[in-house]
């Protein structure tokens, strides 16, 4: 380890260190990162679909989706670019609810989004109360640059897995790398193990 001469750091005393994964810093801002222009899909054109290795695909339009039972999780989020944000509150539909009644033997899921973005996750990481399709943030509609109208929310993994502008979950037998995963980012992305890049 190289000691950086003269570096003391600006440690925050108002943050419980046990809530901050290694290599992360806590910010009050909500930085935006995305690989391309922000899509602006009309709600009348918006659908959400569960497809792939399922007995029968299911989908919802915007109004039907909002009518599904929702939850308001308050969670900490961790971006691979090093910022973490604590106690963010969302409203969304639990993925468990969406998969209710879907028969599948798949082990993985590939999320598809407006703009062509994809990301891959093990199915067990978005079930069991661990993930939502979120459409509100801090009590208001989710802003387009933050993934609105709806994004995947999987707070226990690095935030690139919480795909913005999500439109479909494709259940798969194999773990197919998504967008950032093909560009050298980690297939799984556990912030507590600092799985940022391939090989971590």
């Amino acid at each position, binding site marked *: 380890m190289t000691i950086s*001469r003269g570096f003391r750091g600006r440690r925050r005393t108002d943050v419980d260190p046990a809530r901050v994964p290694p290599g992360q810093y806590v910010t009050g801002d909500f930085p935006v990162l995305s690989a391309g222009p922000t899509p602006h899909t009309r709600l009348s054109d918006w659908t959400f679909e569960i497809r792939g290795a399922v007995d029968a695909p299911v989908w919802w339009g915007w109004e039907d989706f909002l009518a599904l039972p929702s939850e308001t999780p308050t969670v900490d989020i961790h971006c691979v670019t090093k910022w973490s944000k604590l106690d963010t509150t969302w409203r969304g539909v639990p993925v468990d609810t969406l998969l209710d009644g879907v028969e599948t033997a798949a082990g993985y899921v590939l999320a598809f989004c407006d703009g062509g973005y994809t990301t891959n996750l093990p199915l067990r990481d978005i079930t069991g109360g661990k993930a939502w399709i979120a459409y509100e943030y801090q009590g208001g509609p989710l802003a387009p640059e933050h993934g609105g109208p709806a994004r995947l929310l999987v707070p226990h993994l690095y935030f690139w897995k919480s795909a913005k502008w999500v439109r479909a979950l494709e259940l798969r037998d194999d773990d197919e790398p998504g967008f950032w995963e093909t560009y050298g980012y980690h297939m799984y992305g556990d912030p507590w193990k600092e799985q940022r890049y391939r090989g971590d």
Partner: protein
Amino acid sequence: MQLVDETARTRSIVLDVPAWAGHRAGQHVDVRLTAADGYQAQRSYSIASAPEDGYVVLTVQRLDDGEVSPYLTQELRIGDELELRGPIGGYFIWEAKLGGPLFLVGGGSGFVPLRAMLRHYLAVGGTVPLRVLYSSRSLPDVIYREELIRMREDHGLDIRFTLTRRQPTGWSGYARRIDLPLLAEVAFPSGARSLTYVCGPTEFVEAAAGGLVELGHGASGIRTERFGPTGT
């Protein structure tokens, strides 16, 4: 190591990295600082040099409430060691084989990775049509100012500036934030299927990338990189 003050708030750190495996223009590195008691902080910084330059340059903008950038811009001295990881990133890159026409749009210190692309373009004798738009608050805030003006004069590159807050007397460039008419004037026609790289603060990227889409440019030809807070 060499330190170059580019503007009042930005400094370039020219690094001699042993066993550097090379990088592609547009990639970044993670810089990790370690205090004497083991406390660590890390941040990502774009590489400002071209792969052909033979050294690695990071241009860092000082954020007053930052943790790493004040150290890198004010405390770091020649002879100090810096812990780097990288290069990282494989999407926001341009290399000659990706072709063009190439449109580089930078806001503030978001110009840093585009400078790597520009230097790469010149180093490989780039032939695809190139246009560059750099938005800055004022002329003294333009990073690599003299180099860019030289590129314009010596190589005839189409590099244009817009100064959003203060303009020098007799300024003949643009003098406003990026908007649709400005983009329509500077960008290639939408039918040219150009490859566009936009980097800057979020509102800047929204205006530039969103504006190009509104003008009929295909979203798949626009690559973005954003930094900085959104304030929400």
